[in-house]
């Protein structure tokens, strides 16, 4: 069985579990609604300054959803010690890693599909900039977050205080990507400012960390 097939089996399994319980999808829907309701009281973006802020709000909602996804993603493997069972199989650790990343990225993109249109409609926003470039930003940003998140989540699964450790590691690492996506989104909403440079930052970020993660994953997981 090839590397990719293994990865895709992981993705299929996670999607199937999700289809059964719909845990994540619903949690995300909730987040989206919550953010919308809360902000609609105090926030009707009229000025450009406030549109910039909307981009921050959007990404914060997105990130919270993301943390939920990562959390649940590894919960699923911890119930009944399934993670141990995965380690028993001959499947390459990095294929498992890629599978988990892809599944998590899909869930996050799903979150985006729910969140973004709601945001645009409720806050009367529209993309004055390049929408397709922004979609690229979305995908690149999601991948960047997911690669690091999955790596560290896997690394810390068995640490006692992992709930602390995961964000401690993940947050500072992700800051460049976060800045880039927020700035790029602001640029897309306002139709001014450079998206190009932020896309380059994101590409660099993704390439560097994906490479590092693939190189180091086996070592880190087998070390136990």
């Amino acid at each position, binding site marked *: 069985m090839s590397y990719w097939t293994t990865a895709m089996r992981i993705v299929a399994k996670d999607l199937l579990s999700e289809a059964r319980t719909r845990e994540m999808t619903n949690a995300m829907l909730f987040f989206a609604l919550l953010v919308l309701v809360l902000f609609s009281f105090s926030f009707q973006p009229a000025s450009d300054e406030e549109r910039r802020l909307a981009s921050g709000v959007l990404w914060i909602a997105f990130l919270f959803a993301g943390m939920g996804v990562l959390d649940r993603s590894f919960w699923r493997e911890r119930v009944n010690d399934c993670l141990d069972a995965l380690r028993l199989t001959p499947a390459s650790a990095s294929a498992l890693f890629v599978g988990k990343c892809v599944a998590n990225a899909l869930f996050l993109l799903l979150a985006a599909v729910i969140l973004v249109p709601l945001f645009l409609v409720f806050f009367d926003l529209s993309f004055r900039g390049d929408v397709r470039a922004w979609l690229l930003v979305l995908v690149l940003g999601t991948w960047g977050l997911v690669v690091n998140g999955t790596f560290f989540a896997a690394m810390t699964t068995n640490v006692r205080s992992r709930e*602390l*450790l995961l964000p401690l590691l993940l947050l500072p690492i992700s800051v460049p990507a976060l800045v880039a996506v927020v700035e790029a989104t602001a640029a897309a909403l306002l139709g001014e400012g450079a998206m190009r440079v932020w896309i380059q930052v994101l590409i660099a970020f993704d390439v560097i960390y994906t490479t590092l993660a693939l190189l*180091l994953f086996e070592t880190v997981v087998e070390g136990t």
Partner: protein
Amino acid sequence: MRTERALPRWWFGLVGLTAVALVLGVLHALWFAPTERTMGTVQRIFYYHVSSAWTAFVAFFINFLACVAYLKARHPKWDAVAVSAAEVGVVFGTVNLITGPIWAKPVWGIWWTWDARLTSTLVMWLLYVSYLLLRQFAAEQPSQRIWAAAFGIFAFVDVPIVYLSIRLWRTQHPGPVIAGGEQSGIDPRMFLALHVCFLAFLLLFVVLFSWRYRLERQRAELAELRARLHRLHLERSV
């Protein structure tokens, strides 16, 4: 594995040398260098501000190399190098982060702003604090060192960003004055003062680093002895 009980003589020589260099640094920074035209006396913090940042860069670079070496060789000494460098690096990073706002308040009128340089510096500092915390939290895990090494490599990605941030983006923070191209450049006496300070800080780094490294090795030795003792104890009780 047997570490020297007493500190080696060269180390005390180094401490003396460092002390001299630090005094020279103070003299240069506060005395020999001219007062800057627009900012006045506050600008003299510049020598410490920049030296500490550069020393932190050096420390983090050593940490990076040691992390790679540890993953390759799996020898605990590389891990000891890595943790020592990171810890001392965080100390110098802290000096940079404290002197920055002290300078910023009178010059910019605010303590802090979120431009690329300041943010990336803060993030770099946070990363290495996280690195140290990771070691602490995973202390009982068998793969603690491997994880730390992996994270060290991940973290180092931010260091070049800090350095390049004033070159890539428009920042509130002043652009490069050393090695910055055509329009940059400073008075030669300032240049000299900066380098004396930097040298003094580098020496200080070596002193602290070697001390910390020794401590780490001794700790490992102690742990090994403890384990052996525990074993003997168990063998008795069989």
